[in-house]
């Protein structure tokens, strides 16, 4: 029996950004939450492995570390087909950075899922975009890891992974237990997440079996304090000034292109590694 652990983060909907100016962290309690799109793809990958009869029996545990409201994404994971949902939550875990998050998830897997064969994460969350938790977790568990996977295939005692990195398509094989992060990709590819009818989530809510674990249940030291022990701490969050007051032209195409080369001909030619004498207009000749 293969035990797959899927690590799922709840992220805020991008349209809302409630930051706590005092602690410099996201006020997740007041944000409208959703399952991180990359984690959703990781769950989809697990569900497809489970559905494939040649994999043999598979059990899926969805785990999330977060505030109490993060249980929503676990109910959703259950509705989608995860066998178990576990929420790791405790006031002392608040403010965990990627490193502390990996430590907490690592503790759960070491102490409570010794039979874990495959750990799946999203490659990068849509809010903090660090791409760090997966590789840090693998290092913490001392297991091999492959990032940015597009396709998985279970073999005997190992897994074959296809991924695109830095202009290469790589076919890799990795011994299990191991960790794979699932990449974002085009909408129409293999791990396009399945759709849940709302009734499905509601039904999962009614079954009501999300396991909640606090610091003590997890086996973390009583002095554990994620905010204090995190090697990075967000001090300030602000909006970058990105709007430019550029020149936007309308009108006759020829005229616009001429103006463009009057204004930017030098820049264009120097980027091309050529000298531009002066830009001459045909009508001037």
């Amino acid at each position, binding site marked *: 029996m293969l035990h797959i652990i899927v690590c799922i983060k709840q992220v805020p909907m*991008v349209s809302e*950004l409630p930051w706590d100016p005092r602690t410099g962290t996201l006020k997740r309690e007041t944000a409208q939450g959703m399952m991180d799109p990359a984690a959703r793809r990781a769950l989809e990958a697990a569900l497809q492995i489970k559905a494939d009869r040649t994999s043999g029996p598979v059990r899926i545990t969805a785990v999330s570390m977060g505030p109490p409201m993060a249980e929503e994404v676990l109910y959703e994971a259950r509705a989608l087909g995860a066998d178990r949902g576990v929420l790791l939550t405790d006031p002392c875990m608040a403010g965990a950075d990627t*490193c502390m998050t990996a430590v907490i998830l690592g503790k759960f897997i070491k102490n409570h899922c010794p039979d874990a064969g495959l750990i799946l994460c999203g490659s990068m969350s*849509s*809010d*903090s*975009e660090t*791409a*760090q938790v997966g*590789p*840090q977790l*693998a290092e913490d568990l001392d297991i091999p890891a*492959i990032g940015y996977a597009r396709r998985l295939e279970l073999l005997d005692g190992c897994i*074959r992974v296809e991924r*695109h*990195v*830095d*202009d*290469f*398509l790589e*076919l*890799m094989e*990795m*011994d299990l237990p*191991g960790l794979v992060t699932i990449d*974002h*990709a*085009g909408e*129409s590819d293999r791990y396009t997440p399945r759709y849940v009818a709302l009734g499905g989530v509601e039904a999962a809510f009614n079954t009501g079996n999300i396991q909640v674990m606090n610091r003590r249940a997890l086996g973390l030291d009583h002095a554990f304090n994620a905010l204090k022990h995190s*090697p*990075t*701490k*967000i*001090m*300030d*969050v*602000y*909006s*970058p000034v*990105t*709007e*430019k007051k*550029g*020149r*936007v*032209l*309308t009108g006759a*195409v020829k005229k*616009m*292109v001429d103006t*463009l080369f009057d*204004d*930017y*001909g030098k820049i*264009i030619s120097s*980027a*091309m*590694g*050529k000298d*531009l004498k002066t830009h001459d207009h045909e009508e001037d000749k």
Partner: protein
Amino acid sequence: MTNILVVADIKQGELKGSTAELLSRARALGADTAVVAVGAQVKDLADQLAAAGSDTQYIVEDASLEIFSANPFAAAVVKAANEFNADMVWFGFSETGKAVAPRVAVQLEAACATEIIDVTIDGDAVQIIRPAIANKVLQKVKVNAPKLVAVVRAGAFEADPEIAGKENVVALDPPETDTRAKIKELISDASGEIDLTDADIVVSVGRGARDQAGVDMVKDLADDLAAGFGSSRAMVDAGLMAHNKQVGQTGKIVAPSLYIAVGISGAIQHLAGMNGSKVILAVNKDPEAPIFNVADFGIVGDLFDVVPLLKEEIKKIRA
């Protein structure tokens, strides 16, 4: 004094521009600099690495490092970091760098930060700035650990041509090969093409180009400019462009001297991948397209009319 170790960005035996950019910034911060080069054949790059601004070059060369694998690569970097007593290890942006950095951080018991755009050192206090949520916000992050491993976002720092280091080559033993995760096959998606993340000019095509003929027309423009050729995700989803050409939050992050967006609306996820470009030109028939909010110069018009004229002008420059 801060010791900063920069991980050389080497692709297909060639040293990429980001290495000099990172070293320039490290020197501007007053740090002692070293660089580590990992690969099957990297010894010959030592003089280039010194010229890029490093005062020590750690060389980890072994035939087993021909094909990138995260574990041995991380082990090699850790070895160099310990040898140099590095306070910071900086990677230039690449997917491989992003995969290795967190592993190096755990082994060095260092803080880890990806996609950083700035670092400040004030005595013992180290702060970094990084964008998040598709560039919607910037985070100022304090480093609460004695060491930092960071991945620097493309285009964040500029290379100072005045800077040069000195050659001081230190060869390190190669790490043990990792047999737990191995590459079976490696297929290049981009042989002979201009590397998007390293190009001076990038031309990107969006849904406005409609079909293969439209894509080919814009590709021609890119070729005339000797530019890298990218695209929005809509074109990747439509199967008209390969995923490794996608620019944006979930694709490549580019910061060329000149970015030309053709038929791209400028969705926030696309902007996240290109709004660090020095000059942005946009062609779109919709005057309200958000791409014009970040463009230095916008042409409101039908790309099927505009692109042929652009090509004519560029032919003149090439002549």
